[in-house]
């Protein structure tokens, strides 16, 4: 095992289509209650048609829930992030003098506002106070200001692996002794931009997404935010906090195959998983559950599936695995963070989470995901997030150090 102190997870907050708190999300996961529905809130020709994992709160309601005056410029991405932060930071007292950093992640950033006011900005002064909200790093700074986080603040944007990379950086900085505490995670709201973008790639399913199913047709998009409080073991110990989990491993690699598609054999994913296990000092056989990226696109699930078979040494050796994207939709930059929360719930509940909408295994793979909530021993969880640009990230969460 490693000499350097591991980062422990001592707090978390999540908001997604299946709940506004960790407890609500857990309840939905336990009871196979998906949050995917026809698009309702965003103005779009796809409203009422495309299936999405939408959080059933309007921006006005989010402002209200956070107690923020409506004339202040907060994008939907920012509002979702702050809601998740509220829960994550509930037990954290930043006056305790510990060096605290914030590493956030997003792909949408302020695009939900920019697309709304694209012509309006030039025609009227009414919404121009939103102009500064466009860049990815803007809402990170809004969060940092609100909480007084100073030691290190930054934002990662690597498409669908963004938040996993934020978690990875936080863990690395804690291990290196650069921070005592890192608030890590990400947020992405639904937007016309992303909905239409994925639709133009012809990978958007016209029905409920079916990860790892032979007849899967594509993904459903979702929106979410989640943050984890990572602390050094020493800090958590001094503050008498019970670790929810340990970030025992992490890895990032690049598929270097295509701008968006994954390679046929999932090499990037394989390399990332191997790196994560190496950092954790664990053999593949130590993994009890894989929370897969599993977007339900024809390309991803085949590619990732092949990487899993290769990593574990045969389809019979692949441990219990599932994708939770049939619950929440593909939440893009936030996926790595909400799925980290779910992976940690698997550890705290000692259960494997269900993969909904599955019927037929992918013929070429011969692996079957876990379709129902299953109580079982879970010591180590592997969580994958694979993004455009071949960006592959893998995290290992462990019950014990």
């Amino acid at each position, binding site marked *: 095992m490693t000499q350097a102190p591991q980062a422990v997870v001592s707090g978390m907050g999540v908001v997604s289509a299946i709940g506004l708190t960790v407890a609500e999300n857990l309840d939905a996961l336990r009871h196979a209650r998906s949050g995917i529905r026809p698009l309702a809130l965003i103005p779009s020709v796809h409203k009422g048609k495309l299936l999405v994992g939408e959080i059933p709160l309007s921006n006005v309601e989010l402002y209200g829930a956070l107690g923020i005056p409506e004339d202040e410029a907060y994008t939907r991405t920012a509002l979702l992030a702050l809601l998740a932060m509220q829960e994550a930071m509930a037990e954290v007292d930043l006056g305790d003098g510990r060096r605290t950093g914030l590493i956030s992640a997003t792909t949408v950033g302020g695009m939900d506002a920019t697309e709304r006011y694209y012509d309006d900005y030039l025609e009227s002064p009414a919404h121009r106070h939103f102009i500064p909200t466009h*860049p990815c*790093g*803007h809402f990170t700074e809004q969060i940092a200001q609100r909480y007084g986080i100073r030691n*290190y603040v930054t934002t990662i*944007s*690597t498409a669908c692996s963004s938040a996993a990379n934020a978690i990875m950086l936080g863990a690395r900085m804690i291990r290196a002794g650069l921070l005592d505490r890192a608030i890590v995670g990400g947020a992405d709201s639904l937007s016309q931009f992303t909905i239409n973008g994925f639709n133009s790639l012809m990978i958007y399913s016209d029905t409920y997404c079916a990860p790892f199913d032979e007849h899967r047709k594509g993904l459903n998009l979702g929106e979410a935010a989640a943050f984890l409080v990572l602390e050094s073991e020493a800090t958590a110990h001094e503050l008498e906090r019970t670790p929810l989990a340990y970030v025992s491993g992490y890895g990032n690699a690049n598929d270097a195959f295509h*701008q968006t598609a994954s390679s046929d054999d999932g090499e990037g994913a394989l390399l990332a998983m191997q790196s994560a296990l190496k950092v954790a000092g664990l053999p593949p056989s130590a993994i009890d559950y894989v929370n897969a990226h599993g977007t339900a696109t024809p390309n991803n699930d085949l590619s990732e599936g092949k990487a899993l078979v290769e990593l574990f040494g045969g389809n019979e050796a692949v441990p219990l695995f599932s994708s939770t994207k049939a619950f929440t939709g593909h939440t893009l930059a936030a996926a790595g963070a909400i799925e980290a929360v779910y992976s940690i719930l698997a550890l705290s509940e000692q259960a494997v989470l269900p993969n909904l909408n599955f019927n037929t295994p992918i013929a070429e793979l011969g692996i079957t995901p876990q379709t129902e909530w299953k109580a079982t021993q879970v010591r180590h969880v592997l969580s994958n997030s694979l993004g455009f*640009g071949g960006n592959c990230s893998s995290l290992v969460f462990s019950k014990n150090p």
Partner: protein
Amino acid sequence: MTQTIYIHGVGAITSQPELLDGATDEVRAYQQVLVPAVDPDYKALIPALQLRRLNKSMRMALYAARVAMREAGVEQVDAIVTGTGLGCLTDSERFVQAMRENDEQFLNPTPFIQSTHNMAAATIALAIGCKGYNMTYVHNATSMEAAMLDTMLYLCEHPESTVLMGGGDELGLRTPQFWEQAGYLDTVRPQVPTPLTSPGTPGEVASEGSAFFAVSAKESERTVAKITGVKTAHDVTDMSAWIGHFLVEHGIGIGDLDLVMLGYNGDNRYDAIYRSVGEGIFSDLPQAAYKHVLGEYDTVVASGMALAVQILVHQRVPAVLRLNSYEPGRLRRVLLYNQRRGKNHSLVLMQTAGC
């Protein structure tokens, strides 16, 4: 953790190619508020079939990265770590425009794909076949600094590695119109070189560029310079204390600096911050500016660093950059201090190779 980053090769694309090519005195003049970077002959290093769809930020990054690798004499790297403030702006705009004009129908996927913020890093990885660590920081005016800090950490963890580290931003078409509405731009008398004397005018001259560095944790005969410290802060209340503390952390005093490069950009609302340290803590040092010729963008510090490398290698500060009459003797240590609109302060400490 103190980890030195040794620079073995640099590639930079800016609006001032002659200046960057050996820290010469040749500076191009512009009479506009949006100054594009001067395109090199991209086809010399990027095959036409690859080049055809790449937006400017992607092609600048790939070209600069290839130059850096060539200068460093490396065919492959272990990691690619980048920063960008706004990513691929033109393709983002193109997609939004298309959505609005066509009622979300008949949408071409290319601009959507290429609007993803990590596309520059992805393009490089794809072009050179690099399957290693690949990261993109998108944090306003400290995006490049975040990439540097990650590179330092990475080199600490993987001491035998070579890393391509870089930062870049491109101008948009619609977005600068928003900047004008938000009051960011100089609408009075934008020009390059931008006058830096008081009283000056409010607003920036916006530009674009990309700079990449092939780096490692070890010195070699190809090393051209090194980065020994990086620090960022969103807000700084006591500037002298903050800077002083940084120098102490790196075991040096003010007198050990040979040149300080200040991020004056001609925006009189915020240049006062540079003036206060220029007349305060840095008053006895040779001072230079660079953004008055390179323009302003979130990752301009990367290009400023490329310029600093030229200054250190050629041991001269071009006259057009000098702010005061102090003659630097031997140029060993350079400190870059930057902020943008009063926030996102950063310090980058660089040194000549071999000392």
